[in-house]
């Protein structure tokens, strides 16, 4: 099996046979630079006249034929209907009568530009929406900023060119045909227009030689029809918008306080952390996200959320409204949690065994001297107990006697309110 022929005129690889590793990105950058090598960071416009010029250059560059020791001239411009322009374009190889001397090659574009059929652009993005192309730094003498360059999808357009050779020798036809055939041995050849590789397809070859005219001058006239699968890039459609003109960097300094952390394992892990305040700080971080804060105390005194402190669920910090005094102990009781373990944002959890548990607080007003506090539900995980907002310590101030009862180890005064927080 033969080796596939590399497409002609594509110098994608630069001067290297193949690119590896970082060379690939370097080469891409190089190609991009070649597209934007003009005076801006944006690609140059490609409009119909650029495509025409690209075709003309392609013909001049690739279809050079020498006959009788002289190069067959290519008419210098795309031929149009303006008569004087036609005369001006071929005057350099005209005879005494002003007729173009044979042989010659002319490029004639069909006036109609058709909707592009380039397969790579067959799917269009409607409404000429613009897309990010580059961020370009700016400097106004005082401050650094950036502009965001956006361009719309290029518009595909097919242009048809007739490249006509008029000559009097069969050998000249052969030479021209050879060049064309070799160039278009692949499906398409490419011309480089402002850094963009634009494909050209050979569509047909026609012979219009008036050789049947026995009684008049005869010559060979062959027309090679090429279709350029072009793109229109119009700089009128480019968008340049200022991006960031000033960056404000905010840095938050979290004071490294002495911290004591304990985690009570259960069906729901409850972490208690004690942080010593330095007298000025209002932000206290536990160093990990907190899904739910059960309680916050200062020196054992219960604080109320949104009254005494603020917390956004899922963040690692609380902000006290007012700085606690130096050496005050801030106690935060929280559930670190996982998203999968939290059924809602407030009171319902999925515990480690997959069971839905609910946060509940029994508030019991002391009416007698009985130390036993009977609960509404069975305790799944115990959270906290406070009397009149003062935190109580398990084993020191109370014990859990069974799943529905707590025993106080002291006697609170009548009318005191005991809050027992637990999950059931």
């Amino acid at each position, binding site marked *: 099996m033969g080796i596939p022929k590399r497409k002609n005129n594509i110098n994608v690889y630069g001067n290297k046979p193949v690119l590896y590793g970082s060379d690939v990105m370097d080469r891409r950058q190089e190609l991009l630079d070649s597209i934007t090598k003009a005076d801006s960071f944006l690609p140059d416009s490609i409009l119909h006249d650029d495509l025409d010029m690209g075709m003309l250059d392609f013909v001049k560059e690739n279809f050079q034929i020498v*006959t*009788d020791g002289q190069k067959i001239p290519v*008419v210098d411009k795309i*031929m*149009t*209907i303006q*008569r004087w322009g*036609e005369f001006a374009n*071929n005057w350099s190889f005209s*005879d*005494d*009568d*002003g*007729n*173009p*001397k*044979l*042989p*010659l090659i*002319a490029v*004639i574009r069909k006036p109609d530009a058709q909707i592009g059929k380039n397969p790579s652009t067959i799917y269009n993005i409607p409404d000429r929406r613009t897309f990010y192309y580059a961020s370009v730094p700016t400097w106004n003498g005082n401050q650094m900023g950036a502009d965001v360059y956006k361009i719309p999808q290029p518009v595909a357009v097919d242009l048809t060119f*007739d490249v*006509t050779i*008029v000559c*009097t*020798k*069969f*050998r000249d036809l052969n030479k021209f045909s050879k060049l064309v055939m070799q160039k278009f041995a692949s499906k398409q050849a490419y011309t480089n227009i402002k850094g963009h590789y634009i494909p050209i397809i050979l569509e047909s070859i026609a012979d*219009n030689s008036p050789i049947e005219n*026995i*009684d*008049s*001058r005869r010559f060979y*006239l062959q*027309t090679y029809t090429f279709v350029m699968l072009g793109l229109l890039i119009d700089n009128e459609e480019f968008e340049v918008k200022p991006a960031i003109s000033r960056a404000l960097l905010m840095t938050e300094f979290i004071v490294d306080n002495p911290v004591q952390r304990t985690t009570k394992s259960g069906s729901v892990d409850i972490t208690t952390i004690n942080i010593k305040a330095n007298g000025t700080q209002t932000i206290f971080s536990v160093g990990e996200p907190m899904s739910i804060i059960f309680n916050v105390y200062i020196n054992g005194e219960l604080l109320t959320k949104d009254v005494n402190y603020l917390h956004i669920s899922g963040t690692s910090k609380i902000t006290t409204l007012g700085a606690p005094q130096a050496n005050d102990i801030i106690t935060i009781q929280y559930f670190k949690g996982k998203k999968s373990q939290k059924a809602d944002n407030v009171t319902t959890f999925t515990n480690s065994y997959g069971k839905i548990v609910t946060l509940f607080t029994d508030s019991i007003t002391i009416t007698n001297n009985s130390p036993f506090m009977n609960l509404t539900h069975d305790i799944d995980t115990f959270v906290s107990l406070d009397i009149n907002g003062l935190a109580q310590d398990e084993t020191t101030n109370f014990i859990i006697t069974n799943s529905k009862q707590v025993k106080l180890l002291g006697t609170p005064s009548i009318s005191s309110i005991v809050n027992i927080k637990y999950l059931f």
Partner: protein
Amino acid sequence: MENKLPITRLGKFFSQDDFDINIQMGEEYLHGDLNMKLVLYRVDKNKTGTDSVYAEAGKDDIKYLPPIEFNGLVKIDEPKNATYKNGILRYQEPGNMVISVYIKHLNELNIDVRYGDYIGYQDSEDKVRFYTVVNDGKITSDNKHKMFGFKPHYRTITCTIVQEGEFRGV
């Protein structure tokens, strides 16, 4: 030796002498009064280098025998406006040149005008146009070319213009 048979038709009204005197008077008018001169460049087939496959000659490769001046009645058609490609790449094609020449004159010069030979005709003092023979008019059996139906007396040679790249008389 070729067989020759005298023409005896129309003998009661016309003879070889009549034929000759008509030619003589015609030549007197054509060569003396009109004096339209042309130059025949007969292609030297032996010396002209041609392509081995297509028998084409390159620029200035056409070699010709010594040019010979001859007289004829010249009629040049009007030039036509034309284009090589669908109305673009315009050129003006000089009209064909039609030459009427006495056969006797060609015989006296011992020349023959052949298909593909070149003929130069002076357009003006500083402009000569070259034509190539596209119809050498050798067949003269028609009544037009026979004097009163007696026998042929002239040839009509049709030529078309050649471009400088093909032939320019050098």
